[in-house]
């Protein structure tokens, strides 16, 4: 069996597939810096003759309020999810608690069920609390829906801690919250970061609740605004693509710079590996 031949073939296949996977993003960025005339010529793969950063200004102007709204909603929601979720993860993994399996089970089920099924009660609840079209309403709902995931991922990491460490701290009279703050959090920073990235990306990329719980542009996060950009400027691909790049910049940067955390978060969150 020619192992060299196999290696060569597999590299060729991989390169072709990789090109297919990169083509959309290349075309997207390439088109986003072209002038309207060049876009109309439809030679999408050719590099631009003239680079038009103006497209980004146009797109940014349309998305600015949405980006600010997304930051105002996503950052606190993520922080709350990770803080409260990790406390629960700590409790479930390190305390004497007989029901912890059962509680885990219902948390896992809640985190996997598609949240679309509770859209109607969510809008009813938020309307009843008078929180329609408010930051607080969206933050509240995102926290409720993502806390299970925050708990599960942090718990997965806490489980790998040596039990002896916590037992020694308890014997020395270290209070539970002090142990959490001074020992557990500092040593499980990678787990916390993984959980935060996954929850952040999930909330930032969310669309259905962002349209269902907002009216008008004041509170609207960036994803619905990008969707409207597509609706309003039907043939202006270059502006749409510039908008898509701007919106994806943050998650992609996180992915590129922190990909190990991103992957371990995915693994812990979905597979419980």
């Amino acid at each position, binding site marked *: 069996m020619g192992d060299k031949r196999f290696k060569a073939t*597999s590299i060729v296949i*991989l390169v072709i597939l990789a090109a297919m996977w990169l083509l959309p993003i290349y075309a997207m960025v390439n088109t986003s810096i072209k002038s309207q005339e060049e876009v*109309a010529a439809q030679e999408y793969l050719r590099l631009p003759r003239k680079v038009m950063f103006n497209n980004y200004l146009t797109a940014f102007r349309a998305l600015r309020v949405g980006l600010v709204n997304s930051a105002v909603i996503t950052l606190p929601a993520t922080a709350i999810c990770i803080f409260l979720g990790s406390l*629960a993860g700590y409790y479930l993994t390190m305390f004497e608690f007989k029901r912890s399996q059962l509680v885990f089970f219902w948390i896992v089920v809640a985190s996997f069920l*598609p949240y*679309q099924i509770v859209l*109607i009660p969510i809008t009813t609840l938020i309307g009843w609390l008078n929180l329609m079209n408010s930051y607080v309403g969206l933050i509240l709902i995102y926290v409720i829906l993502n806390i299970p995931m925050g708990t599960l991922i942090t718990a997965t990491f806490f489980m790998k801690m040596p039990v002896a460490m916590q037992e020694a701290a308890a014997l020395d009279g270290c209070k539970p919250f002090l142990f959490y703050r001074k020992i557990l959090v500092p040593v499980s920073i990678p787990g916390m970061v993984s959980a935060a990235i996954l929850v952040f990306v999930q909330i930032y990329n969310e*669309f259905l609740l962002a349209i269902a719980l907002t009216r008008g542009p004041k509170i609207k996060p960036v994803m619905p605004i990008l*969707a409207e950009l597509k609706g309003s400027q039907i043939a202006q691909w270059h502006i749409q693509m510039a908008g898509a790049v701007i919106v994806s910049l943050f998650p992609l940067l996180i992915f590129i710079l922190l990909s190990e955390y991103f992957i371990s978060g*995915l693994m812990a969150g979905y597979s419980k590996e």
Partner: protein
Amino acid sequence: MKYSKAYGFVFLTPVVIAVAVIYGMIIWNLVAAFTVWEGMRATWKFAGFLNFGNLFELRRFWVNVQNNFLWLFFFIVPTTLLGFILAYLFHGLRRAEKVFRQIFLYPMALAFIVTGTLWAWMYDPGSGLINSILGGLGINTAKLGWIALPNIAIFCMIFSAFWQYVGFALVIYMGAIRGLSDAMIEAANIDGAGHGRILFQIIFPNVGHGTLICTTMLAITTMKVFDLVWIMTGGGPGIRTEVLPYMMYRMTYSQHNIGMGAATSIVILVLAAAMVIPYSKWAISKWVR
């Protein structure tokens, strides 16, 4: 000595409340689906299976169900298969592994709305990327409507999700294959087994948990594809790309028929729970020692 439970029960309370709210909302939805609605107004009068009966009479509902099953099959099988094969190919080349992994994984960081915007442009019959490339090669693209063609629109949409999720299948299988012993693969290699045989008769049966994780997670994803439908086609042409969550949204907010919207959610709940509950049982039994 573990900490006693009473001490830190306050740690658990916020999550218990959140999870209780989620299940509370599911129960509310269940009640709503079995009661009479006057447009958007609840009467809380028991309606039996009235809403479900109305729903099941709609041809639209069955088209949606069929579309959901198309998603289940044509999304899960190719994504899992390519992810698995890629993971095997990666196994052979340790150094380049990291670069290639990033290339297939980056779409996972994108929002469905971004993927949808991008692929709606790729597929655009008049000015899209695919037809411009094919046109450049001298192919007549007049009949290649992609996402605009009723018969293939849903497959075009599924392909864009496939593009986005292959990286997910890849990392799951990379983890699973790494857990196998190299000796097993080496031995098969020495025995002269071809790569196809090694892949499907030796490795595949031994990464069952990876396959289970992968297919279940992808199946749950198919229940969430609302955003892609919204941004790429709005359910069209006609209702050919509609899926249940999309119909649920339309029933509730465009047709103001909450009773049937709630009944649709319950259908989705039943389909999702049939996958989620057994999977969660399995995951917990493996996970909590």
